């Protein structure tokens, strides 16, 4: 009975649109139109805002050198020549391009591997083995996370000379591992809480050594977090500029971003080649980002927010 009395007024409202109910319906409809129109405007503005600098890169990469210095907003005679020049290293600034690309791949790969290894080992001892005073390690990591990396650049550069690592890719790897590991430790700590500790304990009673527990139980169960952190470390190493710029000055061991920035400082920068280089350099991280986007952003929120 009570349900009937509830449904009755609704039926009236849906019926003939007259009187107060009809007016309310019209207002609601108008409000809906206004919202979707406002939303369309907002989305249009957002798209222009988001894509303008990206469109700018693509447009210049498609132009000929002379057309870069023009007042057009569409590419004049678009062609893929600049990409071909970069691919074949056909300009003196680009003569080491693929070698430098290889350096970037090597550094990013090593950083990813070392970050995963060191951070997972650390969070295993602190979170799973419950090493006493492990909070000291976690706090050291937290402190590193909140110190801006650029503030340490100058002493870091001088210290690399002390260590005899000046102009050596390993100095960059050391720097990037240092700044990527803390965040990785948080993520692993946070994620590790969802894995029951009883698993470790029963393995321990069965006589498994910590190494076996780490390899056979911890790492396989941490796989999603490893993927998230691996993506993070890879992108960080690929995208980083300051340390690579300070620590690598030789043409042969330079990475792509350093070479790209050198381009910018030369007197007659061929912008179309530079933008084509920039696009080729940006594609691998973009693909990685979109492939692992969902896992990455869940990881980011875990670490960036909860700590």
């Amino acid at each position, binding site marked *: 009975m009570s349900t009937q009395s509830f449904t009755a007024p609704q039926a009236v409202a849906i019926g003939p649109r007259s009187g107060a109910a009809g007016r309310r319906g019209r207002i609601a409809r108008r409000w809906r139109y206004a919202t979707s129109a406002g939303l369309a405007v907002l*989305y249009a503005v957002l*798209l222009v805002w*988001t894509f303008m*600098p*990206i469109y*700018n890169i693509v447009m210049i990469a498609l132009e000929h050198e002379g057309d*870069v210095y023009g*007042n*057009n*907003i569409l590419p004049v005679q678009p062609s893929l020549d600049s990409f071909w020049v970069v691919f074949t290293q056909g300009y003196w600034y680009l003569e080491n391009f693929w070698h430098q690309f290889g350096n970037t791949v090597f550094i990013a790969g090593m950083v990813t591997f070392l970050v995963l*290894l*060191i951070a997972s*080992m*650390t969070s295993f*001892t*602190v979170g799973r*083995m*419950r*090493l*006493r005073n492990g909070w000291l390690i976690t706090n*050291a*990591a*937290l*402190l590193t996370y*909140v110190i*801006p990396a*650029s*503030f*340490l*650049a*100058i*002493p*870091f550069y*001088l*210290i690399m000379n002390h260590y005899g690592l000046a102009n050596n890719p390993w100095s960059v790897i*050391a*720097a990037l*591992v*240092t700044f990527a*590991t803390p965040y990785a*430790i948080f993520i692993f700590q946070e994620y590790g809480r969802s894995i029951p500790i009883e698993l470790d304990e029963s393995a321990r009673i069965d006589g498994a050594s*910590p190494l076996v527990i*780490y390899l056979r139980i911890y790492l396989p169960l941490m796989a999603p977090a490893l993927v998230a952190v691996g993506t993070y470390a890879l992108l960080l190493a690929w995208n980083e*500029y*300051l340390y690579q710029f*300070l620590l690598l000055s030789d043409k042969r061991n330079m990475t792509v*971003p350093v070479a*790209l*920035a050198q381009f910018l400082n030369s007197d007659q920068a061929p*912008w179309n080649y530079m933008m084509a280089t*920039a696009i080729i*350099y*940006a594609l691998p*991280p*973009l693909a990685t980002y*979109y492939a692992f986007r969902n896992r990455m952003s*869940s990881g980011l*929120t875990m670490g*960036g*927010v909860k700590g």
Partner: protein
Amino acid sequence: MTAATVLDVGSPSSKQKQSLWRYWRGNLKGSEFTWALAFSVPYIAVFVAFVAYPVFYGLWMGSDPALYSDVFSDVIYQDTVVNTLVFVVLGVNLKLFLALLLSGVFMRPGWVTKVMLMLFVLPWAVPQLPAFISLHWMLNGEWGLLNNALWILGGIEGPSWLNERWTALGAAIASHIWKWTPFWTVILLAGRMSIPQDIYDAAKVDGATGLNRFLFVTFPLLANLYLVLTLLATIFLLGDFNTVFFVTGGGPNNETHLLATLGVRNAFDLARPDLGVAVVMTALPVLIPLVIILMRKLRTAEVQL
């Protein structure tokens, strides 16, 4: 308990040593403790060699008080402090406020929103260097895309954005906002998604809709997260190097430097590493309290619901 204490007091030093050893070992048995040490050594080594040593080396380099009279009397440094303040206040707040609003928009159901979100995060996914180089050229007064578009589409002659201090600084701030708003939007979006639907249902019964729903339900629940993000964004922004270095290059006439870029300029362009460190060190009175508050917040506070 008292008996144990008495025994401890009476015990010889070797036993004390043993209990200290036992204290450090905790509940770990002999070989397990060795493993635990072996597993934690890599990170400790990294921290000592590449964080602790540079930090103390930097503190030692910047310990000469005479350096600071050089720093403070430098006109470029004085400009830099103003720039940093403007950059932090506008950059952090505009970026986070935009992110807060946009995260609400991206909560809407439907595929249009999903596609928009995917496109919107593009600036975050693009590496910094190509993005900022592109922005640098886009803002060129003579040949840049922005002024060309303004002229062709609106008949407006845009200024030389990067040739005047305040427009250049504005350009750098806008570039920073362009690059990083997606990142904070995604985080705030996750924060909003973790608010259970029944809270909204209850609020609806109580008559909270539209703006009231945001003011009295969503925002109070997100407030703590928003505060943590503000602190984090402030620290990240204080250390921002790439935006200013590539968009304005510190120019015109070194008028748009931030602390990080000025430090690197002093250390490498002027070959005065101590002066560079001193510039960065002047951020410590602001940075240290921020770091302490943030470390407490990060350790204790989860997204509070």
